[in-house]
């Protein structure tokens, strides 16, 4: 697995991104034609702007695609394995936290996330991590709920009435 990441070159990434953009552009153009891409009696039809913009984007993306296909940049996208490792170590907890939001609500999730990250990534001691995991939700709670009364996602415990958050 790691060697795959390290063999990824800038050229490959450029090509992939440009290809996605071209595909997206094509999709939008077909949708825009649906909506009407011409100039009606009262000015542009709804599809006019998406059409022209998608044309511009697709042509430019084709240009990038062509360039990266013919003269690919062979520099590796990730220089060392440590890059990928760090990225995943930071990115996956973020992903997990957002998935958890629906059930944990903002306050519980943020507390768990901070405590976990402090202990696991930052190598803080367990009681420091717990302290952080309580402090952050407490501050958020005071400011968002009591202070400005801004609605935030609530946990399943809240919805079933067990806990106030």
């Amino acid at each position, binding site marked *: 697995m790691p060697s795959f990441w390290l063999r990824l070159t*800038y050229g490959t*990434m*450029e090509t992939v*991104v440009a290809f996605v*953009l071209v595909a997206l552009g094509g999709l*939008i153009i077909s*949708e*825009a034609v649906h*909506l009407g891409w011409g*100039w*009606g*009696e*009262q*000015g*542009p039809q*709804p599809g006019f*702007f*998406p059409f022209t*913009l*998608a044309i*511009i*984007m697709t042509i*430019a*993306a084709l*240009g*990038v695609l062509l360039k990266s296909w013919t003269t690919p940049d062979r520099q590796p996208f*990730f220089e*060392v394995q440590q*890059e990928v490792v*760090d*990225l995943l170590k*930071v*990115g996956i907890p*973020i*992903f997990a*936290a*957002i998935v958890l*939001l*629906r059930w944990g609500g*903002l306050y519980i999730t*943020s507390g768990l*996330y*901070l405590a976990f*990250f*402090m202990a696991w*990534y*930052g*190598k*803080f001691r367990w009681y420091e991590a717990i302290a*952080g995991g309580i402090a*952050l939700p407490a501050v958020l709670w005071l*400011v*968002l709920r009591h*202070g*400005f*009364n*801004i*609605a*935030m*996602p609530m946990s399943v415990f809240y919805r079933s009435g067990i806990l106030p958050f």
Partner: protein
Amino acid sequence: MESLDLLMTGLEALLTPSRIGFMMLGVILGLLVGVLPGVGGTTGVAILLPVTVFLEPISALVMLAGIYWGSMYGGVITSILFAVPGNPWSVAVMFDGRPLAKQGKAQLAMSAAFVVSFVGALIASVLFTFFAVPFAELALSFGPPEMFAVLLIAFGTFIGMGGDAPGKAAIMIALGFLLSTVGLDVVTGAPRLTFGYIELLQGFHFVPITIGLFGIGEVLSNAAERYKVQIEEMTRAAKLGLHDVVESVRAVVRNWWLVISSAVLGFVTGILPGAGATPASFMAYGIAQKTSKHPEKFGKGAIEGVIAPEAANNAAGTGSILPMLVLGIPGSPTAAIMMAGVFMWGFIPGPRLFTEQPDFVWGFIASLYLSNVAALLICLTATPLLALMLRTPYAIMVPIIVVLCIVGSYAIQNSLLDVWLTLIFGVLGFILRRLNYPLAPLVVALVLGAPTEEALRQSLIMSDGSLAIFFQRPISMPIMLVALLLFILPLLQMIWRAVRARRTAEAAGK
């Protein structure tokens, strides 16, 4: 001068302990609101409006206004320190403010932003005091064609931003525009580019996207680069003390013309109904880059890139209140909410307010000056503490920033979908940044895309499909010409450079 006398009476009315107290309270609340990402000044004013029912009118108005001004200062902080824009109008300052922070100059960037915000607001306040009526009448004669022309200028100022990869910049602008068209069509009401998904009917709000591109994208980029350099080390260079404040004042004075022109631009933009601090900040940034001697430095930590948008957005915020008070036409969403407050307290905004309630109006205008002074002092003293925040250990910083991003995205429309959008654009932002796609044009196109298209189509409805309307109206015509010039100029520059290169080559050959 009569205006000055009236200002003095206003100041007198303001200078009671309770009114000053409420003003300060408003400023502090505004700073807090501005720091919270996603919760802009508008939300803060809206939330605290009911509280003001219990206050007497002058206190209520200066408190609400204090919240608004405070939020204009506060938004700078999260933009520069964490690359998480606290408000829509704090996005532009992030482009150069964040690189400055990474170079250890966070304090300099923040001080400069605060100082120039103050100067911009001050200039706008002076214009407000003496030219209230003529400017308000100007706002009245603005219709969709004029609006479109102004927004076209905003785009024109960004055309030169392509730098070394104009093709990629074009892709980003087109993509930003396309994102702004998703949702219900403004004129026909038909859903556009939703591909049958109900969730897409509400369209893409630019705040979650921007928070994702810059906030999460920044977090991921930092994570990937940690093996190279420890971020905490870089920020140790932030010295505490007056040094940076003095340096920032010097930077502002050096660029005095930029400050004044950005402030005037911001003020005029703010007066226009519909436009506000956000387009003003982008326009000022674009013009600053175009007229700078070192345009390539923008985006990498040019102090002009911090000065221009901050002067403009504070001036615009001040200007947007003007048509509300003078004509009863709110120049921005926040002004609209404040207008609701004015009604609530028993007054009717409009020309008669000036003559019938001079204490109220001029007390408010006096508070413009005072609350800005208060905000500036509070901010400057807090800057060292804020810069200290950058020294927090990485493992604590990252979750806090991510949580701030989540809060900011969710707060906009109470939608978990927006939070996912933030994450998706965070990953995209990381990839695009690495591949040298400029992100700023995407954001500008996204923010300004919908109002521009709306203005264009409204104008065309007015003229039954003829494009000539832009050139037939006395105000929009000169603006259109300037806009078109801004578009053509880079082209001419390229041709000129090519011709000169040819000539020097020929001369060398002889």
